[in-house]
């Protein structure tokens, strides 16, 4: 069956089918998730040789393993013998080699075949145990950026650093905020199931104007909570991170959005030097290791959600990465990983966890209204009440910048930027003049 994709994406609007058509979802798995660099995990999740953790890249179950030589490999979680998954879902240690549960074929931690039972049974047969196809198949490309492991299921395409473009600065800042310049995954992973297409979640990451409307229940509850405290009580952290969504549209307009080629981008925050004891102790630890000037430089990079399209969203100020795993056209899994800044006080990490518990966990007070909105969008898009989804706000007003473009905080540039990338992967002509969508200046 051929699917008519042409015309579904235009520079300032998209057809509802890109969110609702299961056949288009399958094509996305082949073309978007089959080509782009996808976030696999962080090297600290497999600290010792033999450590592994599993995940999914698009439709593909994969496993990240650290080999005895220290290299991190990403391979398909499939035994080349009969096809069984080699390791159970989750993370653990395989020891010195991976051993399939089904017939006991064993593999080194780089995937190469180590031994098979009844080796003599293969003598003089067409199965050559030295043939690499009897090792575990590796994903086409693996690359690491400051400890963050990415993989591509395609041999072709830009190198990781080129792919990341301007979004790489968010991963830099993520690590630079650690006094030792490194981060590690810690504190467990929260998982949230959403009943919506994965793109709806991504578009919401830089949608500033939904906050005051959608999140009224939580920002109002937070404000009321503070008002109920004795006059002059400083706003607790728990209130600050929730009531900010109640800022008026003029506030969001002042933020700068940046969009880069391949669909990435970030939102520049407004730098407000925090003055509570936990923040001050952290800043002191960074200054002690980096010096006051460099520490200030690092902390001035103040960003809310970064988009690394189409697989993850790092949040540099609160040390977390949300990983987006599409499950079906209308179901999406989001995994939330928290990171420890190496060399920072323990209270800093505890605050990271407080943030994720309050804002991102399944029990978040903020997120349920997002999920309700996404779900109502998904259900509404399935109706005959209209065919198109608008991305018109501030269209045609983007400012070019190297490798991308910038807009004010209330523009729908991020959605247009992601769909430009989507169209590229899917082989769809949007009808845009090159400079209108790519907006790049060399």
């Amino acid at each position, binding site marked *: 069956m051929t699917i008519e994709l042409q015309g579904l994406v235009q520079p300032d609007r998209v057809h509802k089918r890109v969110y609702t058509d299961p056949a288009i979802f399958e094509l996305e798995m082949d073309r978007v998730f089959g080509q782009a660099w996808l976030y696999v995990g962080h090297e600290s999740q497999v600290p010792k040789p033999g450590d592994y953790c599993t995940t999914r890249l698009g439709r593909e179950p994969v496993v990240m393993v650290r080999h005895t030589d220290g290299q991190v490999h990403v391979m398909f979680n499939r035994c080349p013998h009969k096809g069984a998954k080699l390791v159970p879902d989750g993370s653990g240690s395989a020891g010195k080699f991976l051993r399939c549960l089904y017939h006991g074929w064993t593999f080194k931690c780089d995937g190469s075949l180590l031994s098979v039972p009844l080796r003599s049974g293969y003598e003089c047969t067409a199965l050559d145990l030295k043939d690499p196809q009897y090792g575990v198949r590796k994903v086409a490309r693996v690359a690491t950026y400051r400890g963050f492991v990415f993989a591509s299921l395609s041999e072709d395409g830009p190198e990781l650093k080129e792919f990341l473009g301007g979004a790489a600065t968010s991963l830099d800042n993520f690590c630079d905020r650690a006094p030792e310049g490194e981060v590690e995954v810690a*504190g467990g992973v929260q998982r949230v199931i959403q009943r919506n297409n994965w793109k709806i979640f991504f578009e919401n990451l830089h949608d500033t104007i939904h906050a005051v409307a959608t999140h009224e229940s939580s920002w109002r*509850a937070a404000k009321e*909570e503070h008002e109920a405290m004795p006059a002059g009580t400083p706003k607790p952290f728990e209130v600050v991170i929730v009531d900010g969504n109640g800022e008026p549209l003029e506030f969001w307009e002042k933020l700068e959005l940046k969009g880069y080629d391949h669909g990435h981008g970030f939102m520049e925050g407004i730098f407000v030097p925090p003055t509570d004891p936990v923040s001050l102790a952290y800043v002191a630890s960074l200054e002690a290791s980096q010096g006051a000037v460099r520490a200030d430089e690092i902390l001035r990079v103040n960003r809310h959600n970064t988009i690394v399209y189409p697989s993850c969203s790092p949040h540099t100020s609160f040390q977390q990465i949300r990983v987006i795993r599409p499950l079906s056209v209308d179901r999406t899994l989001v995994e939330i990983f928290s990171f420890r800044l190496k060399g920072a006080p323990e209270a800093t990490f505890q605050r990271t966890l407080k943030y994720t518990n309050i804002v991102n966990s399944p029990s978040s007070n903020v997120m349920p209204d997002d*999920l309700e909105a996404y779900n109502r969008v998904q259900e509404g898009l399935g109706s005959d009440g209209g065919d198109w989804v608008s991305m018109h706000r501030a269209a045609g007003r983007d400012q070019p910048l190297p490798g991308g473009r910038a807009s004010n905080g209330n523009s729908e540039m991020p959605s247009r930027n992601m769909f430009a990338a989507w169209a590229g992967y899917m082989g769809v002509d949007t009808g845009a003049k090159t400079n209108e969508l790519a907006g790049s200046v060399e």
Partner: protein
Amino acid sequence: MNFRDWNEQQDLTQFLHHEARLLDEHRWDEWQKLFTPDGLYWVPLVHGQVDHLNHASLFCEDALLRSMRARRLEQARAYSQQPPTRTVHVLGNIALESRDDGCCTVRSTLLLLEWRKTEQRTFGGSVLHTLRRADDGWRIQTKRVDLVNCDAPHEALQVFM
């Protein structure tokens, strides 16, 4: 450890049943008053979790966060409470784990049925109440709910378990 006598068993059983009823009837204010001022409501994220400060949780709420959640659930524009979540708590296997001066820990088994919009969900787990005696009855120092599927992916968890 056994209950001292039928009165003690009744006393603690009635308390747990009352607490469950307050939740099922959305009587959030009365429920919050059952806690000590520094009481903790905690639903761990992983089996055997010992630490709520250095590890993420499903719920980890002190008085401030419990109050914020209760306030949110009652907001006119809490869109994810259109319609509201309906629950029924069923407690069983109520047993005394320890008794100290004015303080005790009670273990119970929870089955929780939750309904919202189109979906009925079932949660089950083991609950540990650490209780302190106050002038007018028990207060909750810690309520810990260990779900059998704590480490599963979840859709939004909006109401207290």
